[in-house]
């Protein structure tokens, strides 16, 4: 099997599908956030991705490489999503592109590095740890699986990553929130899934689905 190469169109498709996902899951995410937060997570993401879709053609045509394209996407999310998830997800995309400057296609291994950079940006920005009941509870264990399961084929490997993130999101249910707005609820946050943990595995699943399309599964 030839090496898995991801071109710029791959990333454009991913963003389009993420925008579609967010519209579909908006109410679900907002509902989760109204249980333990301020009930705007789905709305926040929707505002950001709608603006991204509006500008997608333009930024795609202007960006010289994948790095710039993702930086622009991240900037729009930064400016429009607001709240906590704005800088977190915005930073994720900006940093994901940071190491692939000048490239118009990347390898699967490079994609893993991009995701690692993105997750590191979330950790650095939010300073949350696993167990704080945030998206970090999905991303960190997921990323460990993604990096470690070098024995698996790309699709299986990425599927294991998403699967682990999904478990990580489930794992937030019994936790007491230690970061973000849910913190103020203290013990009362127990029994609810963290909305950001939920949105994060869903967004990563969009990448998985696009990988599958490429390898023609």
């Amino acid at each position: 099997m030839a090496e898995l190469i991801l071109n710029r169109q791959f990333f454009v498709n991913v963003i389009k599908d993420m925008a579609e996902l967010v519209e579909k899951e908006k109410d679900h995410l907002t509902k989760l956030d109204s249980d333990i937060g301020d009930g705007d997570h789905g709305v926040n993401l929707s505002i950001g991705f709608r603006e991204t879709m509006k500008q997608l053609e333009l930024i795609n045509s202007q960006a010289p490489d994948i790095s710039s394209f993702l930086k622009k996407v991240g900037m729009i999310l930064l400016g429009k999503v607001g709240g906590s998830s704005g800088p977190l997800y915005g930073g994720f995309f900006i940093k994901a592109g940071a190491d692939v400057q000048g490239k118009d296609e990347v390898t699967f291994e490079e994609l893993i590095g991009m995701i690692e950079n993105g997750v590191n940006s979330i950790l650095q920005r939010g300073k949350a740890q696993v167990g704080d009941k945030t998206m970090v509870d999905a991303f960190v264990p997921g990323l460990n699986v993604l990096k470690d399961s070098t024995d698996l084929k790309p699709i299986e490997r990425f599927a294991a990553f998403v699967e682990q993130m999904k478990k990580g999101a489930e794992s937030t249910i019994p936790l007491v929130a230690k970061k973000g707005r849910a913190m103020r609820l203290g013990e009362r946050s127990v029994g609810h899934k963290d909305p950001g943990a939920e949105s994060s595995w869903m967004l990563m699943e969009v990448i998985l689905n696009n990988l599958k399309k490429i390898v023609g599964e």
Partner: protein
Amino acid sequence: MKKIINHPERVVTEMLEGLVAAYPNQLKLIDGRAVVTRKDVPVANKVGIISGGGSGHEPAHAGYVGQGMLDAAVAGEVFTSPTPDQILEAIKAVDSGKGVFMVVKNYTGDVMNFDMAAELAEMEGIQVDKVVVNDDVAVEDSTFTTGRRGIAGTILVHKIAGAKAEMGATLADVKAVAEKVVKNVRSMGMAISPCTPPAVGKPSFTLGENEMEIGLGIHGEPGTKRKTLATADEIAEELTDHIFKDMPLSSGDEVAVMINGLGATPEMELFIVNRKVNQILKEKGIGVYETFVGNFMTSLEMAGCSVTLLKLDDELKDLLAAHANTPAFKK
């Protein structure tokens, strides 16, 4: 909700337009970005000083833009952090090549968004550094923060970092003096009535006719305790006690005092509180170098006050005394 506004969604934009209309020779507004800058930015050979945060704390922060204090202020929606692209706009506007210093209040959203903006600015080759102000001794962690919140003490950071920058100091020197202020400034607040964010339309909390909330923040987030309304003297004692526990002061020390109104407190009451704070300090042999009484860091129309003490050394005294000319603070 009773407010003199046109529409809850336009309050921030219209307020900034009204501010710049009042000071057309001193301030300008970056269109559509809710960024207010000195009219003469970038000021050659000066570290640019910026601050910002959610709106609803007026005159913080746009009221402190001017000679000797801030070069720019970035306004978020009411009680909501501004976004990195706005902040980046401010950084670019004020950078003269000597770097930009950010005064950030310790709220998770603010810290994340300012950091993000700093990284973006650095990618564009602008040197950026920051200080995180966490003067509120009331709580270690709150709804909005990890660690202590930044409240009225922030204005003293603006003043002192601003004066240092105006003297031509380097970014590192501005940072050093700002951190010295943060290390030596402590605040504690209380309220007797809540505020109503325009877009929310209802009060942030309710208090009985005879209750007060001690140690609350400037977004109506809960305080450390709810008590029966006490006298002004008792309130002054309680607030200063908390500060002394955290930052022991001894006879011979010198401080600057800020008695800050939260928005709806008659000045009469602030001066009555200052009377007692002044007595308490004098009894302890602590020198009062300067006193600021007024609405410096508000919470819309909340009624209540905070007390801030800043322990001074000679450098801080000189910088506090330096010239400043902004809409809300003149020296």
